[in-house]
């Protein structure tokens, strides 16, 4: 298994370390799950108004164990299992936030955020604007998303396009443990509601680092590999695909720059446009279907802003325009290194 790099990384024995803060303990090997767990723990410890509730986040510690141990440590007034109803979870989180709390709630899989769609789109996203800023809703909605884990139907959706096309929401997705920690803490501290999307297939990815760690701010994309010929844009689970493609592309003599978007809304135009102006070619990779996917926004806005710099159209290397398939068909659906390289080849390099 390959490992992505964080910001300012030092690669040690195939694992990535991140510059530890002055007071931090010795670096150790940390999974994304563990990093998220620690971010929640530290947020609970630092701020009394942080609350965690949802389906099975208490005793069980969540089906992915992201909230493991937190109920025991902070008590069932801070961390508890709610009845099984997603609209209920988001709706009550709204009320708690109106009353001064910072709820962090989990939707068990992203297809199970859909019952809460109205509460998220009509209230979470709009309350602040509705009240001219008088009521803010500092809610963090954690959503494990995307596939490549052999999940049965409804367990592998990538729902980011629904959230990114909704004004009022901030949408964040880490691709590595250090970012997972840092971005989650920042999301919980934010006065804006954040949809925090956790790439399921990366939960068990390890990095050597010491927590707490503070990475680039959440509104910044990060160049995670430098290159001069092509810019590959990726987020969450596909950052690894992009890095692997860059590695493979190097064998073909292509110098590929890889950017981890980290935050999908807002979009970091500055960082990404700078890269695209340098390379003049870019592709965006995501697992979700292509039609109307997040990649459409990326391609459209990069083209609007950098048209004269482009030697070729921005490509989208994505899942197909079909519902997410069953496990045995995943490999044919998901964007692979081969699909990325084929796409790059489709450009007329003589242009």
């Amino acid at each position, binding site marked *: 298994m390959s490992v992505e790099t964080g910001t300012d990384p030092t690669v040690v024995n195939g694992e990535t370390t991140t510059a530890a803060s002055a007071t931090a303990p010795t670096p150790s090997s940390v999974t994304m799950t563990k990093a998220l767990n620690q971010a929640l723990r530290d947020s609970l410890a630092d701020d009394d108004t942080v609350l965690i509730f949802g389906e099975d986040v208490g005793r069980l510690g969540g089906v992915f164990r992201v909230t493991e141990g937190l109920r025991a440590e902070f008590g069932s007034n801070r961390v508890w299992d709610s009845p099984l109803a997603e609209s209920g979870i988001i709706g*009550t989180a709204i009320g708690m936030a*109106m009353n001064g709390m910072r709820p962090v709630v989990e939707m068990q899989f992203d297809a199970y955020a859909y019952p809460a769609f109205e509460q998220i789109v009509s209230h979470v996203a709009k309350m602040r604007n509705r009240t001219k800023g*008088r009521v803010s809703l500092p809610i963090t909605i954690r959503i494990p998303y995307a596939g490549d884990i052999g999940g049965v139907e409804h367990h592998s959706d990538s729902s980011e396009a629904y959230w990114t096309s909704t004004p009022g929401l901030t949408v964040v997705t880490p691709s590595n443990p250090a970012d997972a920690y840092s971005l989650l803490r920042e999301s919980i501290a934010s006065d804006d509601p954040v949809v925090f999307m956790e790439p399921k297939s990366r939960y068990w990815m390890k990095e050597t680092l010491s927590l707490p760690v503070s990475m680039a701010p959440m509104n910044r994309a990060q160049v995670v590999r430098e290159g001069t010929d092509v810019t590959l844009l990726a987020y969450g689970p596909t950052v690894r695909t992009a890095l692997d493609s860059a590695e493979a592309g190097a064998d073909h003599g292509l110098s590929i720059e890889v950017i981890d978007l980290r935050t999908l809304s807002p979009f970091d135009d500055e960082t990404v446009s700078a890269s695209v102006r340098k390379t003049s070619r870019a592709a965006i990779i995501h697992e979700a279907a292509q039609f109307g996917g997040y990649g459409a926004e990326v391609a459209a806005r990069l083209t609007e802003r950098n048209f004269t710099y482009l030697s070729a159209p921005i490509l989208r290397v994505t899942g197909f325009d079909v519902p997410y398939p069953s496990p045995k068909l995943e490999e044919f659906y998901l964007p692979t290194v081969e699909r990325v390289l084929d796409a790059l080849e489709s450009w007329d390099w003589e242009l």
Partner: protein
Amino acid sequence: MTIDVPTTGRSLPQLQPISFIGADGRLTDTPTEGLRIPSDATLTGLYRQMVLVRRFEAQVTHLTRQGRLATYPSAAGQEAAEVGATTALAPNDWLFPTYRDSAALLTRGVPVAEILAAFRGDWHCGFDPHEYHTSPAATPLATQTLHATGFAMAAKLKGEDAATLTFLGDGASSEGDTHEAFNFASVWQTPTVFVLQNNQYAISTPLREQTNATMLADRAAGYGMPGLRVDGNDVAAVFAAVSAALARGRNGDGPTLIECLTYRMESHTNSDDPTKYRDTEEVEHWKQFDPIDRLEKYLRQTGALDDAGVEEIAEAAETLAASVRDAMNTEAEIDPRELFAHVYATPRTALAEQQQVLEAELAAAGHA
């Protein structure tokens, strides 16, 4: 085979709606589940407020017909439920109203102009929720029932002595969110009072096509929560029932569902045409249950109210109506740049760019 669940207080509400003062202005002999009739002083205050809100509804409806407001859903006929429930709140409690509940907002002290801002199209919510301990009026049906539950949960976790009250309609009772709110509130034992204004219609859909239950208050038993059916046109019953439920909640005994039987005398909103779905006879029939008439009769009998009192209150109502007209004559200041100002707490570059587009357009069009 034993399962560890509560088995206390398992019963359905009494069939006859709880009522103190009948349509004839006399005391009824309906059993009232241990509730006590409010004092004459309280009732006089409730009377006054009902007269005020009725005048308010009439004035606003009138202005809406003249095209001065974008839309308006009147609660005419439902004054007892609106005023009785809202008056029972302590200042620290929070109210979670709907689009139909301007009368409750008024009762809660929200200024006329701030109530009307939404309906005249100035801004979605015209008042500061924190100032009035009142949530923005919810339009997506039943969603606010969950907000009220969550707010109360936070109050409980913080050990605050506050309860929440939310209004919902007979139609809204069919939405999934209502069920989830009843359930969360009862499992968490939050201090929440659900005041279900059963006004017999959801726009054009009559109650019998909304539910097959004998009464909507029957829902409560399924959540292990007390449910009451009250004569929603008897403000004494509404006030007493809601006060008791709020006290229960603050006392740590959890939520209560109160179904207020009432009737929407007006059309759904100004753009509705009720002749398509109900007879004028039905509307006439309900006039005899008017909440204000009966209380006036009653208070005149007890001597708490006389011609002078009635007159004084009528004048106050006219003053209020005048203030509504004044408010509508004052154009609110609309700043198009505010489109961008409140979407996020954290500024966004791309939004600032879009604001520049708008500003250029405004400049080109000679806007300030």
